[in-house]
């Protein structure tokens, strides 16, 4: 999921200082799990804004905030509150914010969160980055642990000289990705494979931005034409 973090309140207030009234949109997916876009987060921000003398015309948790069409339909019952507000606050990720920009052509849209990374929830509201969406997955070759992401240098062929007692050069708080990969491959009795196959340099053309994907066959044809 996309990991988001609430912006510092003073920073947010500075960004939105020119507006008086707000409509808040959360998201029931990742941002809810992160506690940045669930109903509680909306309620808390509503209170905080009111305490600053701002008006909140309404708010709701969108099912999937990055889904433009669905969110548009979900917003229909909120027409009055939306007409009354000067500004829309998005409490999900950067994709959610940009979905709102598409929906609200004439209203300013501001983000209340910073979007950090694609990760796993390891414990309640504790997150680790696990995948960098590189476009060509090599997990099959590394025992299912991603060195592109878990190694700060993205090394594909083994630990660097900075690995100290199994810990990473960059931070003693994280275990060296290559020690983890080694240990896992050893447990699976696949060390020979690790040794025999030097991984080639990655093809970064697979992750040139912005990426698009058309997964529907009939649309693919249309796009070609």
């Amino acid at each position: 999921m996309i990991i988001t973090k609430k912006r510092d309140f003073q920073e947010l207030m500075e960004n939105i200082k020119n507006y008086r009234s707000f409509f808040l949109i959360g998201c029931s997916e990742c941002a809810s799990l992160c506690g940045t876009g669930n109903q509680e987060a909306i309620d808390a921000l509503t209170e905080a804004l009111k305490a600053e003398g701002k008006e909140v015309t309404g708010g709701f948790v969108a099912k999937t905030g990055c889904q433009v069409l669905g969110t548009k339909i979900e917003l229909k019952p909120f027409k009055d509150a939306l007409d009354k507000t000067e500004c829309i606050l998005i409490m999900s990720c950067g994709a959610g914010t940009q979905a709102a920009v598409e929906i609200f052509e004439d209203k300013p849209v501001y983000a209340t969160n910073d979007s950090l990374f694609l990760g796993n929830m390891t414990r309640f509201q504790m997150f680790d980055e696990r995948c960098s969406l590189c476009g060509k997955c090599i997990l099959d070759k590394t025992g299912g642990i991603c060195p592109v992401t878990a190694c700060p240098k993205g090394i594909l062929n083994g630990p660097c000289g900075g690995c100290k007692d199994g810990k990473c050069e960059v931070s003693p708080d994280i275990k060296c990705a290559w020690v983890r990969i080694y240990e896992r491959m050893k447990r699976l009795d696949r060390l020979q494979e690790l040794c025999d196959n030097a991984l080639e340099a990655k093809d970064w053309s697979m992750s040139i931005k912005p990426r698009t994907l058309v997964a529907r066959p009939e649309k693919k044809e249309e796009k070609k034409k």
Partner: protein
Amino acid sequence: MSFKDILNSGKFVVTAEVGPPKGTDIKEMIHHIELLKGKVDALNVTDNQSAVMRICSMAVCKIVLEHDVEPILQMTCRDRNRIGLQSDLLGANILGIRNVLCMTGDHVLAGDHKQAKPVYDIESVQLLSVVNSLNNGKDMAGNDLKGATDFFQGAVVTPEANPLEPQLIKFEKKVRAGAKFFQTQAIYDINKFKEFMSYARKFSVKILAGIVVLKSAGMASFINNNVPGIRVPQELIDELKAAGKEKALDTGLNIAARHIRQLKDENICDGVHIMAIGMEDKVPIIMERAGLL
């Protein structure tokens, strides 16, 4: 004689290093090059060592060449993508630089520009393959070169890495990717190093043992606590302590010389790489005491 020929001749080889300064005043650096000229077989030139921005390695290698010393161009993958690395390799080759040491490189967070974007488009094993490929007249994308390079390429290895096995797997990948010689991280325990060498001797590559002078017992403890992949045995720390403050450095020089002599006399490895780290003037003293001058 080229560094490659000297290594292949079977002579016990000595390399040292020069660290390019930050800034354009190179008087001291030139002094160090002149001091080591005619004594060492080649000089490594570090590449923005510890991710601290300094004069580029290639320019200093050229100066080393002009002083009739064989340079070893250290190349890290931290600051250049594959286009930059290959282009610099071609450039180095036409300047007459023949030896290249391929490394991944310390992370930018270790250095003095922590906000920099680290590159790591490729890493040490892949860089070795790139050099191999340029030597065979092809670039990384498979395009033909108008004139191939003729590099003698090496890499680094940490014989005391903990855990060791993943490091050895990587060592073997480096050998297969074309590394011809290795310079090791500093070693202090000759018996443990012998174990590493009995493994490394299975491969037809040359190994130069890393030597770093211990200036004091404090430095030794610091290394043990903070530097990855180096372990100073307690006996050496005791020896430095017993020498007292005044004589500690001299004792450190003796230890280095003693180790080098043993490595050579017992034919344990193919040479040594002395990393003086600011004490370049001490390198000739060590060599003298080791019986190499």
